């Protein structure tokens, strides 16, 4: 099975804090990964390094064998938690931006996702609610035919009905030649779609493996395992 992302001994420090500490990770294609952990465990830092927004203090990360850079940005679709879309643009403008910037962006698919998410092209980004913006971010991210999808807290600030839609959309966009990494606190909502889980704490992997295997071995849900890992 092809490794889409490999992290070797990756560390990242901010001031005196270490957000990631000698992290080793291998992400394989054809799987949906859950990157789980409490606030400050290093999930967002990991995503931002993989997306090329942060530079690791030490160690090495590659996507499809390329060191993180312009080449890997062609292969990686990142949905950050931040409100990063241009507020002055209409949704239509955002779609044009993605069409111009990303060769793998499928505008028709994006339109399909927008309809599914109940968003219209003529809506101005700044006028959208937090939930609508999250849905828009996800729609444009998943409309790319990337090899690696990084979804940072895609369910944050989303109502329960929309959460279901988001999960459906992620699964609808999933292909065998890609890998999806999703971070979330809402473990129960994602439980059914995760193939693998990675538990992070203080910037290191404390537990990782096949989600189904964990369920069988520990005879508990991933949510229960989450509580066990972080609360003893």
């Amino acid at each position, binding site marked *: 099975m092809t490794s889409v992302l490999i992290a070797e001994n990756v560390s990242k420090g901010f*001031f005196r804090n270490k957000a990631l500490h000698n992290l080793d990770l291998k992400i394989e294609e054809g799987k949906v990964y859950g990157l789980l952990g409490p606030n400050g465990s290093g999930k967002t830092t990991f995503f931002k390094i993989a*997306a090329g*927004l942060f*530079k690791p203090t030490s160690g090495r990360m590659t996507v499809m064998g390329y060191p993180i*850079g312009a080449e890997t940005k062609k292969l990686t679709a*990142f949905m*950050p938690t931040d409100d990063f*879309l241009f*507020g002055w643009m209409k949704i239509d403008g955002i779609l044009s931006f993605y069409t111009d910037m990303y060769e793998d962006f499928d505008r028709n698919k994006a339109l399909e996702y927008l309809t599914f998410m109940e968003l219209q092209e003529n809506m101005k980004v700044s006028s959208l609610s937090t939930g609508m913006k999250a849905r828009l971010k996800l729609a444009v991210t998943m409309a790319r035919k990337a090899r690696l999808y990084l979804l940072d807290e895609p369910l944050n600030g989303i109502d329960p009905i929309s959460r279901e839609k988001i999960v459906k959309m992620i699964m609808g966009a999933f292909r065998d030649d890609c890998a999806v990494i999703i971070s979330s606190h809402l473990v129960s909502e994602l439980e059914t779609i995760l193939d693998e889980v990675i538990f992070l704490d203080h910037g290191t992997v404390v537990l990782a493996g096949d989600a189904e295997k964990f369920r069988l071995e520990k005879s508990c849900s991933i949510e229960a395992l989450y509580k066990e890992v972080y609360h003893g």
Partner: protein
Amino acid sequence: MANLIKYEFIRKWRGLGIFMAIVLILNAVILVKLQIGTHTPDEQMIALGAFFTGILGVFFILYIIDVTMMYSRDLDHKTGYMFMLTPNSGYKILGSKVITAILEGLLFLLVYLLLLAVNFVGFYGEPLRTLVGSDLFSMIVNQVHLEGVNLISYFTVSLLMLFVSIVGLFLMIYAAISIRKSILAEKKFGGLISFIIFMLLAWADSAITNTLTTDIFSANSMISPGVPSYTFLSIQILIQVVLGAVFFCVSAYLLENKMDM
């Protein structure tokens, strides 16, 4: 890179449009006031001259602020991800900003020259011709005595010097911002640090220029008061181009390899 430039302009066009509209309205108000008042043609020319001198200063200050913001805003705000996540290297992203800044500067210049032409030729053609033919104008022109200098090539070199100096200025600003956001990212008082770095770079730039022109090439800096020599200008251009390239490479390298967004 063309797409990056395109979206830089799309992002700017509203602000630029508003600014241009304000300038046009101000210009129209001044023209109307001059036309309906009881001013002599000379007074009208002087008033318009003052207006255009002031506007030139405003154009320049706003231009430098806008060009600086184009880079710093992307580094300081999350909307910068829009560009930084695209599959372009730091060199391309910075290069697109530099080209956008140059095109924007040329646009400002074009608008300024058009306004100047429309005002003076369109409304004050006759007084302008009278002024150019006047003894006072001849006297001022005669003051500028450039022996052995081809005026056209001297004028071209002067314009080139102005161009590379302005580009060099914002590349220096970009370098200061890049150093602050990368090597000194974890230090407090980022804005102040950026400004101090900029001042240090400006000092270094000036020291290098002076050393090279005066001490090494022994270029005679002035051929008459306020008029730098052709050689001096040529060396200055070369130095500015080299320093600009260094500033660009340093900034792009830091953006690509050392900066956290």
